[in-house]
């Protein structure tokens, strides 16, 4: 996504894996708000989120050789690791029961993108925002519930009291539309 920034993060990740502490510090400082924000959003619990972040960075530099720069961005890879760990934990701890109640009461409100970032980031946010605009409200809220609530599609189905095949195709169609739109917008 952030193409101009990407060579930096990839280089930092690789240097960090080789033991370069300055590189790792820089990598952390450039990515921690995203990584922590994601973990906190999914877990809604600071101490669980902090542990997941700590484990995720450990995994990032220990398994940096598994990252393939030809197949995605370093940031995307790191966020995927974090998401996976946060989801594993939320399911293990049954924290999503609490999250479910939260979604039920507040709906799946999505904050606006942060302001004051550099121009390119804003351009990308515009692309993403336009693509999100193509989704139906139901597609978007089920994607939110699943990705940021840490729920699998059967859990979303149960929570929304909707038939399983309906929810599965709703999430899938929404994700696919989003992916294709962003990919076309970026090219």
């Amino acid at each position, binding site marked *: 996504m952030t193409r101009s920034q990407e060579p930096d993060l990839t280089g930092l990740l690789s240097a*960090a894996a080789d033991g370069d502490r300055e590189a790792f*510090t820089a990598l952390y400082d450039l990515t921690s708000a995203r990584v922590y924000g994601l973990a906190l959003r999914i877990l809604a619990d600071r101490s669980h989120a902090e542990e997941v972040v700590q484990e995720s*960075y450990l995994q990032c530099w220990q398994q940096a050789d598994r990252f393939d720069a030809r197949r995605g*961005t370093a940031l995307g890879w790191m*966020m995927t690791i974090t998401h996976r760990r946060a989801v594993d934990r939320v*399911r293990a701890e049954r924290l999503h029961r609490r999250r479910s109640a939260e979604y039920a009461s507040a709906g799946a409100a999505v904050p606006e993108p942060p302001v004051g970032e550099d121009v390119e980031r804003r351009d990308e946010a515009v692309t993403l925002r336009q693509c999100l605009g193509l989704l139906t409200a139901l597609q978007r809220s089920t994607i939110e519930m699943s*990705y940021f609530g840490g729920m*699998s599609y059967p859990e979303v189905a149960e929570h929304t009291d909707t038939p399983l095949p309906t929810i599965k195709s709703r999430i899938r169609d929404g994700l696919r539309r989003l*992916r294709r739109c962003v*990919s076309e917008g970026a090219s």
Partner: protein
Amino acid sequence: MTTPEPGRLREDLDLFAVDALPPGEHARFAAELARLPAAQRAEFEAQIAEMQAVMAEYAARYSDRAPEELRQRVLADHAAAHPSDREAGDAPPVARIDRTRRRRGRAAIAVAAAAVVVGVAMGAGVLIGRASAPRPPADAVVEAAGAVFTAPDAQLASSALADGRGILTVVSSQERDQAVVTLGGVANPVPADRVLQLWKLDGGSTPVSAGLFSAPGGAPVVVDDLAAVAALAVTLEPSGGSAAPTTPILTELAL
């Protein structure tokens, strides 16, 4: 074993990418993906990474500043696994303690965190694992910290300050008769006109100032004549420090 069906995998590809499949289906997808012919697999993996990158961008909306204490823990994990001279055999006691207990003890993590703080404060990774390396520039704090960190009897203690003012970490050596004291993990920084002051307690008479923590993550305080010190304590004082504590003790650490 059944042959993977690319069509069905294609259906579930985006759900897999965002961890929306339940555990059993997730594992089955991963296994079938791994058995696909290379070209087909590469195409699917590219689409999975693309989906993940989109969601990573989406997640930027929830960015949130991570606590400083977490930063120190994460950096300490990395530092502990990468001694700066890259020779485990020469690693000082603090690093060894850390390596054996890293995943369990918060105290052990704090040692490495303290080492990082000190290292940063000194402007380079001059301390860890450099027992026999050329001496760093003539700076009393650098020299004392280096000596204490690499002393064979180096011991660690740490304690959280009240009100989120930080975590006090003390690395001491009886042999050196010195301690190096750092303050990190500050959740609640002190106001601009206040400072955290370190006190030496000998168990009887009035506390004696051991120094000021100028800034979070700043230079450590070196305590000399440790034999005469029973405990260390921290209070919040007006900037410039006080002759004697004027506010309640935020933490006290027996040596």
